[in-house]
């Protein structure tokens, strides 16, 4: 089979997709809002599903977050992984239920759990694809998270692309310098084993290279006042001066709450429970 350069479903594409997700390059409805409001919005959908067993309510909530995912422009990679995960999990739960003589109640209980987890996953996708690293770390500072956490978040984002490139380079090194596989084995099991061992082996040189780099970073942080900022309020106030909750942010929260309330009202009118109460 002749090799070709591909733009999707290649390693390069996965790297770009991860970056697009992490750095909110696609824009979208939530990315224009104040980051604290976005975190609040996320919290609503992370908590509310646990407050009910009503499948109708949960289905409406699931629908709401699904719409949020669409307007937040979540990329195909993350969305695809989510859908595959959801489908696989449902299939295997259904199979198990059928194997162990379950009835419709079992299935409905499983649907309840799947809907809850699905809603939360969709909400996290919508929220975190809309928060770029600066906004996220500033929101954390403003919500009085420890300075080290918020810095860690922004530094982690900054290192992500470097680590991905480095890891890819090292994996390529292993590919080139190991012997090519003579046979791929049944279902390509040899190829899978080779890939897995390479991924693990490549981790060690990458970590060592990274550790060597961070020495400069630690010194630079010291000279650039990171420790000083931890002890004084001045820097914090300056950094957060641009964060402002506007009318649109309030509207977003109000609309969200109204919709969530609507979900509960609908649920009360058309109740559907896994187990009769």
């Amino acid at each position, binding site marked *: 089979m002749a090799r070709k350069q591909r733009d999707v479903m290649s390693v390069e594409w996965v790297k770009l997709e991860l970056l697009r997700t992490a750095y909110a390059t696609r824009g979208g409805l939530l990315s224009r809002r104040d980051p604290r409001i976005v975190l609040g919005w996320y919290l609503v959908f992370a908590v509310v599903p646990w407050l009910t067993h009503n499948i109708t309510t949960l289905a409406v909530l699931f629908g709401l977050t699904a719409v949020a995912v669409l307007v937040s422009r979540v990329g195909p990679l993350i969305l695809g992984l989510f859908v595959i995960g959801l489908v696989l999990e449902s299939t295997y739960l259904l199979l198990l239920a059928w194997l162990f003589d379950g009835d419709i109640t079992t299935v409905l209980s499983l649907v309840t759990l799947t809907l809850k987890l699905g809603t939360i996953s969709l909400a996290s996708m919508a929220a975190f694809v809309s928060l770029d*690293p600066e906004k996220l770390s500033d929101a954390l500072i403003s919500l009085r998270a420890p300075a080290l956490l918020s810095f860690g978040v922004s530094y982690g984002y900054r290192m992500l692309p470097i680590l991905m490139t480095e890891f890819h380079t090292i994996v390529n090194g292993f590919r080139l310098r190991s012997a090519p596989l003579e046979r791929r084995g049944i279902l390509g099991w040899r190829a899978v084993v080779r890939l897995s061992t390479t991924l693990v082996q490549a981790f060690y040189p990458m970590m060592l290279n990274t550790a060597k780099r961070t020495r400069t970073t630690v010194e630079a942080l010291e000279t650039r006042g990171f420790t000083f900022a931890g002890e004084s309020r*001045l820097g914090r106030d300056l950094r957060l001066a641009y964060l402002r909750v506007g009318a649109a942010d309030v509207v977003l929260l109000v609309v969200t709450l109204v919709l969530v309330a609507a979900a509960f009202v609908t649920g009360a009118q058309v109740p559907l429970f896994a187990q009769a109460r």
Partner: protein
Amino acid sequence: MPAVIEVRDLTFRYPGAEVDSLVGVDLTIERGDFVAVVGGNGSGKTTLCKTFNGLIPHFWSGEMLGSVHVGGTDTHESSVAALSHQVGYVYQDFGNQLVRPTVRDDVAFGPINFGLTDHAERTEQAMAQLGIEHLASTFVWQLSGGQEHLTALAGVLAMRPEVIVVDEPVAELDPVRAEETYRMLAQVNAEQGTTIVVIEHHAEFIARYARSVVLMAQGAPRWHLPVREALSRAEELAEHGIPAPQVVQAVQALAPEAPVPLTVEEAVTALAGSGVLTGSGVVTGSSAPAEPRATSSRGPAVARLEGVTHGYRDVHGHLSTVLDDLSLTLHEGERIAVVGSNGAGKSTLLRLLTGLDVPRVGEVEVEGISTRSTSAARLADHVCYLYQHPEQMFLQDSVRQDIAMFPQQRRRPGTAELVEEILDRLRLREVADRDGRTLSGGQQRRATLGIALAMTPALLLLDEPTSSLDVGTRRDVTAMLAALAERIRCVAVATHDMHLVAEWASRVVVLHGGRVLADTTPAELFDDPDLMAAVHLVPPQVSVLGRALGIHPPPLSVAELTARVTQPVAAGVR
């Protein structure tokens, strides 16, 4: 001029170290000076500079005796935070100094941390001063090396320090970008009177930009002299691993009484004044280059690129074309230098030859095998690619295992003997059991060359093999590349290093805008200033000097220049 930094009787030892890194240092740096700190590896240059901003003794708490005063403050009584308002530091691996996601955010990091209310103004001003405003919202991982360096410098400028220390700017930058950094530093120095301290190996930059030179040896300054006087001590500098600029060497060889030149123009004046050039009319075009390297009859093809177009998608989904309908054949016995400005497609070209990527359009063949028809792993029997950063090649626990990895995995007979032979040949025996990452820059390059030799490829590709090496080690690597010829059919190097091109290459391929702009020899390349300017390359000083003296094609080394200038003169005298 009042002193901005005063070091008195300073001795320092890193915690756990066996010997003192600094021994009885006495040094005064005047306000507004542009100082170059030079010296061999391990002479204490970097350690000295870290005492200026208080990292020593506050961050590195070793044993410190003596005192350092910066702007009248004793650093011992002060803190790193307070001193960072006075002294800014740009690291050698400046990329790791950037800690925030975007350029503007990173430049503002210092001022915001210190709670300076005019941080926005300082940030904009620093970026404007270095001409990087257009990058303000760019993510730092999208920057090129040169842009990263300017961003790191802007982060330092935004603090408006009295002193800026820059550690080896040329090490990680190509010459044109390094030149830009130096012009910026000179501008800041002239406009704001900021004192600049650079740690530097490259005498050409010192000659053109510095006003005084500190030579460090064994943990103490040997002397601190004005630049012209410092460079006249060419032999002493060469002993410490800093060969004098080529113009200085040339003038000292041809006209020893003339004043030490700092630029090519001064060298021309010096030579003209001394009467060496009386016979220069005879020189023009008359004598052939001392050592003609270009072979007119080309060997059989080793690799071929045919109508290759390739490009990458960026994070916004745009496709940028890097190579555009490029065709090129690499022949047996050639030493090819691929040159061109950043982003001209040098690395992409090499990657396509390894088969790691296949081109979007066109064909790439190595020893008659199309890269589309086989995997990169199988192609590795024919091609070897050495990355720009050697540490990315160290996959095993020791240098010996790294060298043995390829032949061992492929069960090639005679692996053990081959590895031992390579270790001896590349002088790696003492470090054979160490992890490659712990070696010095030059040793790392040798180790990666060892990995390549063990692969016994037909085609060897190297990406910037001499970057971030000091001048002595660079020579070493160049010599080693020349010695590879007997084992490897063809070697191609992507490089910015015009000294490597001059000393080693037999063929130069100039890439520009994704195409081959010129396919020529080093001497002809350096004889074409328009071409050099178009692709942002700086020829070796000696070639420029040769051209200025009317020698065509220009000489590639100082020895060649002196030979070609003196012969006709001697004949004229007789």
